[in-house]
């Protein structure tokens, strides 16, 4: 239904529409500010703000579980991790030349135009008979009431009906933790690498920036390297 007819419908009251429009406008403002920002601290904070505002928008769209997860993960842990990585890296980014900006803009405008052309075929917002809402998604509600009998349908689907996917997700999180531990080490001391590509022996000290690199090994590691 169009937005004006929706405004006349008593369920879609004016406050709901205003909330929807204002939250989306705020998201667009934050995203545009993120494009032009050069301070990395500001960039990390803005992506946390973006996640939090989108969590609020999820609540206004009845996705309470998703909002909870997005607020906790996106605005919480993700911001902390980016901050701690930023502290190990740089504080400012260098500006991008116009040629590269223009190329990226062209690609993005073309992709956006193609997607906007397809928007006409999307179902109307809130349609209960759209193809996404007509098949197995809504059947889960009835099946949960019979077979599992817990009120939160999202947990029932996540843990029982789509339990295999959630198992894969837990393994993905485990692999990510494993990968970070292999790259950085649980006590921060992994990554003393040595490799032999093309028969040429390279290590930390012969890396591309070896001339200006500081030797950050401890005395034990130095003794071990010399031996």
């Amino acid at each position: 239904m169009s937005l004006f007819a929706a405004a006349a419908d008593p369920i879609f009251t004016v406050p709901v529409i205003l909330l929807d429009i204002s939250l989306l406008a705020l998201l667009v403002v934050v995203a545009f500010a993120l494009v032009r920002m050069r301070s990395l601290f500001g960039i990390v904070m803005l992506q946390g703000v973006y996640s939090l505002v989108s969590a609020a928008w999820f609540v206004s769209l009845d996705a309470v579980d998703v909002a909870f997860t997005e607020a906790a993960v996106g605005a919480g842990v993700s911001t902390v991790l980016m901050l701690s990585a930023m502290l190990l890296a740089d504080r400012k980014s260098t500006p991008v030349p116009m040629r590269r900006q223009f190329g990226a803009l062209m690609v993005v405008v073309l992709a956006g135009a193609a997607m906007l052309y397809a928007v006409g075929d999307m179902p109307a917002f809130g349609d209960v008979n759209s193809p996404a809402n007509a098949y197995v998604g809504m059947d889960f509600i009835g099946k949960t009431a019979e077979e599992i009998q817990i009120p939160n349908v999202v947990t029932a689907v996540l843990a029982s009906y789509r339990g295999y996917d959630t198992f894969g997700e837990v393994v993905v999180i485990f692999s990510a933790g494993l990968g970070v531990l292999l790259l950085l080490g649980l006590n921060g001391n992994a990554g003393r690498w040595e490799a032999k590509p093309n028969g040429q022996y390279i290590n930390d000290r012969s890396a591309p920036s070896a001339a200006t690199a500081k030797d950050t090994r401890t005395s034990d590691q130095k003794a071990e390297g010399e031996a």
Partner: protein
Amino acid sequence: MTDPETTPVADKFGNDPHVLLRVIAKFLIPLIALFAFYVQFHGDYGPGGGFQAGVILAASVILYALIFGLAEAKKAFPPRLIRYGMTLGVILYGGTGILNFILGGEFLNYSNLGKDAVAGQHYGILAVELGVLTTVTTVMIAIFYAFGSRQPETSAEDW
């Protein structure tokens, strides 16, 4: 911004510069952990579940590490236990599936875990959410330890 390995020291008058943070954090950290367990066990009845609870529990540990120092946090939550916890969660989840196998059903079909199908589903969901909580908490804490223990190249004063 202080060096994450050491705790803030008193200035020459003996005043702790972070006394407000310490007092509030001492009060809040157990409440945050309690809230995480609330979210975990009420995930069946309202929004919540293993992922959200795991992240909130990890957030309480990260807050402890930020206020009191990474060395203190590593004494309270040792890295060895964190490493074990990462695998324990996956084993718990997969183990529930294998248990269903052993009891005669299909993989991750929880119906044969209790006296009837509905009770079995409840037990199964409880077990896998516990596995998810364990893995998510320990992985987030492990990633924070990994980033926090790395020695930065530019020191804190150059920021």
